[in-house]
């Protein structure tokens, strides 16, 4: 049973954590893809920017959270969401809108977004330095150890405080997004525009508003994902390059332009990563006596070492592009 708890700690919990972060990030990417038809490479840096805003505000007012009883970074999160959303809209006005007005190919927009990535990265590193910093400036990271009431189980299930907030916030985001897209007027207009931009415009939908709303949502979600990731580990200015591949893999696995698919894709990629670096020989240990010798002796049965984690989303990406380029949920844009 100890091995099973170990499995829960290292795969189920860790996989849900990475999966939620990838899912929230991939939703933003896929929304931008469905409205503006280009792969937004600066998304990873918008996440970093959101986390950096939280870090900045938390260092300015480290005592704010103690008054209510929640960690300060979470109090600052709504503010960071607003700032990141404003940044996203501003970037669109300054850099993407002129390109769109010129009627360039989508791939030129992609290169433009790479330029934006570099600018954001340069700015963040200029102000934040290049080292990592914890978002818990004045608070303490609570760690919950849940001992299971079963005979012979010594290892507790370990969940940290930010992980609990992460699960709650992910569910809130997903449910909120669902109601926004399916019930509200703006959400329906967004879906209409992703289906057929010309027809949407002809039926009186203001496409400029829709584009702005898309950026607000994508920016806000990016801030949430970046902050939650930095809460779980630490804030690092160079996060974005390692986030890009899993997030795009998640969006493509779920079917590009398909928000629910992106959520599913995020969890697929997150769990695939943790399953691939998990050492399976741990689970074989209880059956050691009944196994053949060569299998019982195997010390490390992980698929890839942690240093090759980035291979997993790439492998998933290649596999899905080869077998089913539309993604598991049949995305609209190929």
């Amino acid at each position, binding site marked *: 049973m100890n091995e099973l708890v170990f499995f829960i700690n290292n795969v189920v919990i860790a996989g849900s954590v990475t999966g939620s972060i990838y899912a929230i990030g991939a939703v933003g990417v896929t929304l931008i893809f469905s409205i503006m038809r280009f792969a937004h490479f600066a998304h990873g840096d918008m996440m970093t920017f959101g986390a950096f805003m939280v870090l900045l505000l938390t260092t300015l007012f480290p005592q704010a959270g103690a008054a209510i009883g929640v960690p300060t970074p979470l109090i600052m999160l709504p503010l960071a969401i607003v700032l990141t959303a404003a940044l996203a809209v501003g970037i669109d006005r300054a850099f993407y809108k002129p390109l769109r007005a010129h009627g360039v190919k989508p791939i030129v927009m992609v290169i*433009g977004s790479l*330029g934006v990535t*570099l600018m954001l990265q340069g700015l963040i590193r200029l102000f934040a330095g290049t080292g990592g910093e914890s978002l818990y400036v004045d608070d303490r990271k609570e760690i919950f150890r849940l001992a299971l009431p079963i005979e012979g189980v010594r290892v507790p299930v370990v969940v940290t405080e930010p992980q609990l907030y992460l699960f709650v916030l992910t569910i809130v985001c997903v449910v909120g997004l669902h109601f926004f897209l399916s019930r509200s007027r703006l959400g329906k207009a967004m879906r209409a525009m992703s289906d057929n931009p010309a027809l949407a415009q002809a039926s009186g939908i203001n496409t400029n508003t829709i584009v702005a709303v898309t950026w607000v949502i994508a920016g806000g979600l990016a801030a949430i994902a970046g902050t939650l990731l930095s809460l779980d580990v630490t804030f690092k200015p160079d996060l974005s390059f*390692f986030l890009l591949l899993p997030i795009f893999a998640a969006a493509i696995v779920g079917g590009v332009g398909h928000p629910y698919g992106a959520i599913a894709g995020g969890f697929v990629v997150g769990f695939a990563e943790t399953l691939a670096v998990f050492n399976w020989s741990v689970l074989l240990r209880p059956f050691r006596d009944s196994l053949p010798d060569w299998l019982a002796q195997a010390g490390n049965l992980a698929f890839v070492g942690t240093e090759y984690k980035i291979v997993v989303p*790439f492998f998933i990406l290649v596999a899905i*592009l080869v077998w089913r380029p539309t993604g598991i949920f049949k995305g609209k844009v*190929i």
Partner: protein
Amino acid sequence: MSTTRTDTVAAPRRFPLREVILFVALLVAVLGVYGVMGAAYSTRMLVEAACYAILALGLTIQWGYAGQFNAGVMGFVALGGFCAMFFSVPVNEAFWGSELPGELGVVLAYIVGAVLLVVGASRLDRLGVPKRLRTLITVVLAVVLYLVVISAFRDVAGQIEDQAGFIGGLGLPAWVGWIIGGALAGGVGYFIGHVCLGLRSDYLAIATIGIAEIIKAFLKNSDWLTRGTATYSQLPWPVPGPAEVGFTLARALYFSVTAVMIAVIFFLLHRAYHAPWGRMIRAIRDNEISAAAMGKDINKRRLEIFVLGCILMGIGGAVLASFNSLFDPQGYLPLNHTFLVLVMVILGGPGNNLGTIFGALAVYVIWLMSEPLALFVMELVVNFGEGAFGWEAPASLDSRALQARVFVIGLLITLVLRFAPKGLLPEKVKHVD
């Protein structure tokens, strides 16, 4: 009826004023650097700029000729650099003298056998096995065989690291590594292109970014093959080294080698661009559907051009690594080896070889000079801050000042795309009246 075709008639010659002005300005800038920084440093800058020009020519084929965006130049550069190291470094007797080569050979044979078995299993449906069962068998077999082979492989790799350090090189001349580096980069490019080129153009960018990071991670962590983070220095040169003829002359000799390479590549590309093949490539870029309607095999041509670009990148990376005399997998950065090349191409003029070479030289000179400039500006700001507000500057300021260059590169990309999408020396598109 005349037999000459209209599109082969030479365009009316005009004096290439723009080209001359730009290249004269570049020459003045280079001479200025020579005057300020000394001959040895400036010649090094020229050689590195020449290596970057080879990379930029590779990217201009992909982006300028065919409209494919490769966001992972770094990976192909690193592959080329690895080959330059692996083939030119002296033979490691500690490895070849032991029983380890045999064991490594056995594991490699296992890998080949496992791949053959999996491929065989994926063809089982031809023997009448149902397709679902075939897929299941293939996947299960692949997973099991992978686990078995990879653990055997880890064993051998660990033993090599313990007993011999790393497997060393082959002790061949440097140019062998350059050629094989190009071939290897082309092979990886073929794989990526084969998967992505039939799909949306964005997917190629995503996949190339991924493969670049994977190649870097592999080279960084495979201590048995590359010494990983320990790096390997003293790669031999194909020309007499600084120890024999002095820094400036040795670097000048190396520069002449790279200059000849650029001239050959330029000539071949020029011929190809004006050949029917080049016309077909441009036709596919500008109007895919009508090119397909004319019976051109679009995906095959695209793959051809992507692989060609990757080969050039591999060669350029190999030449660069040999020149630096150092193979450091961690030194390959997306900024220095992907985005800098991208700026060179889009600033110089995508699709125009001369413009690309101009862009490579000019951007590299600016890039190298921006380092002291950034530090100088940062110092000014700090002095001003201390004088005016009593602001105490953080200690890591030097490294932060260099980050400002990241911002400038990004700004340059967006500005060029917005205001000069064709670059300083635009591609000359012939119009047939």
